[in-house]
């Protein structure tokens, strides 16, 4: 008997079940297909106009900085401004994201835009978050050629654009959005929920920013 079958047999023996019970199978099938939401806190059910303020409050609490621009065409200028104010060279790493590409970075001639995954030498990266979670100030980033995962972790500064209308209230809303894009039960290789810049409290419980991931997280709300 394979280890798999032995373990399943042990589970069944301990639970005193055979694994063939129709009621148990139905309970599991229903749970997986319905995927019902549980308790969603009141602050995770705010109307659209209050979400942005709550999202900003928590993102800032966890050490992110926030800027808001009227449209995606304003993003390149905001990126340049951020780099300059952080004393960084005018260079960013970015994936093939359609929204980011539509921003018109060529209108910032001093700004170098490198495309593709990060190799660890970039000081700043730009991503487009597919959503955000207001209840905890969390960004939702999905992997792919549009937004390579390495850009979320390797550059010292992570600049993330998120559209105002994509800021959801709750975690559940973020998952519903992913299911709508990729299909129910399907996920891209990596989904990163990001709440503030990287940190560690491992030495004497003192929180220090910039452990292995970005030292700074700059969120640009678009719209």
């Amino acid at each position, binding site marked *: 008997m394979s280890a798999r079958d032995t373990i399943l047999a042990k589970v*069944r023996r301990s639970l005193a079940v055979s694994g063939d019970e129709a009621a148990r199978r139905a309970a599991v099938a229903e749970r997986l297909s319905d995927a019902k939401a549980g308790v969603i806190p009141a*602050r995770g059910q705010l109307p659209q106009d209050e979400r942005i303020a709550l999202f900003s409050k928590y993102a800032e609490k966890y050490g992110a900085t926030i800027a808001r621009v009227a449209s995606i065409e304003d993003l390149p200028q905001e990126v340049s401004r951020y780099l300059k104010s952080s004393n960084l060279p005018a260079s960013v790493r970015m994936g093939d994201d359609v929204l980011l590409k539509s921003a018109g970075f060529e209108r910032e001639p001093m700004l170098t835009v490198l495309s593709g995954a990060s190799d660890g030498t970039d000081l700043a990266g730009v991503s487009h978050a597919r959503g955000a979670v207001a*209840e905890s100030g969390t960004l939702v980033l999905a992997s792919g050629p549009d937004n390579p995962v*390495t850009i979320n972790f390797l550059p010292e500064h992570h600049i993330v654009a998120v559209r105002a209308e994509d800021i959801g209230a709750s975690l559940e809303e973020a998952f519903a959005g992913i299911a709508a894009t990729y299909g129910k039960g399907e996920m891209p290789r*990596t989904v990163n929920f*990001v709440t503030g810049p990287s*940190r560690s409290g491992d030495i004497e419980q003192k929180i220090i920013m910039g452990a292995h991931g970005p030292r700074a997280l700059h969120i640009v709300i678009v719209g």
Partner: protein
Amino acid sequence: MQITTPNFKENATRALNDAPLQKALKNVEIGFIAKRLAAVDALPEFEQLRDNARDIKNHTLAHLDLYLEEYEKKVIASGGHVHFAETAEDARAIILDICRKRNAKTVTKGKSMITEEIGLNDFFEKNGITPVETDLGEYIIQLRGETPSHIIAPAVHLNKDQVEADFRRVHTHLPADRDLTEHEALLNEARLVLRQRYFEADVGITGANFLVAETGSSVIVTNEGNGDLTQTLGKCHVVVASLEKLVPTLNDCSQILRVLARSATGQDMSVYTTFSTGPKRAEDPDGPEEYHVVLLDNGRTAMLGTEFQEMLRCIRCGACMNHCPVYHAVGGHAYGAVYPGPMGAVLTPSLSGIEVGGHLPNASTFCGRCESVCPMRIPLPKMMRHWREREFEKHLTPTAARYGLKFWAFFARRPKLYRAAVSVAMPLLSWLGGSSRRIHSLPLADGWTKHREMPAPEGKTFLQAWAEKQAREAGR
């Protein structure tokens, strides 16, 4: 790791006399408790979420065989591999085999208690593979040849100057006159040294906080980002997780995520909560080429259907040890096992046997704080009591304690004799307390009075005092 649980008493005495350790342990007592409380107070639905989190795990455990099958199907469908391991030895062999197939020389590791449980690092070294711990706390203790003293803060037993000394000892390629006095400098140095290691690694190993049956995803919850670099930059991502990490759906996962970080570090969400599903897709510019999940039993299936099943709800947040007066006093290493604190006191005898871990459920005052903060509502004191009963039944309790209990039971079964005996004993103890009202040493109980004084009783027994109170009130 070397299990030293049977020496708990000696370990505890050493810990109590260890001045640097006592200084470091203050950080647990002060930091974690206040942060958790603030986060919990800010979420009115917290208690409801705890109920839901408990119910989700109960449902999953009751249908564990079926959820394992569903989860396995989804992992395979997304291009990943699932390996079942009955024992720690089996898990090590499976992981070594995966590494050998890739000719791995170095393996980076995200923080994982399961790989501690199976003793993976020692095994790698014996087989010519270099394991590199990348979590700051794990990296520090790896340099020191130690094991974690806390499940989420592995180096919580250390002070800054000790870490500085280790970095100077090991990072000899860096200038000797560099300034390492600040926390920031230590963190930056570790970041610099480890950054290169991610790129060199052939395989990246992480644990999992959750496995989601609905999608076949593994989930890690971290603050540093090291786990993400480990699994993204390694060419092969190996997840090592125990069976009970399963949850049915992403929405179920959301419920438990809301109590996890708040209970652990007092954050609303940890910085990085990452869902990984299969290897990188054809069009992905980064990510691992291979994705393996090693599902470990190592004693869990034997806990199902017993009075210890509820322990399998544990999500390893560390709240029980953060609030434990025994942990505060002696730290994690005194427990001499992989998992310290109240959750360890229940889990260790289950995983290693009562002969080895039977001591630990006695390292409790039964104050109940662990249960009151456990996000999964695990009745830890009740389960420690079950272990104490089993220990007694197996005649593993020390002789003096057994006779003491028998002696007490003799009187307790004879109420008249008991009352007569205590009405003599109480004034005697009261007299022994002298003017300080403290008893400095007691015959047959010097193990207790060696470390503390016993408050002397007032002189009357409870029943006497009660009878007098009743009489007073009746006469009023």
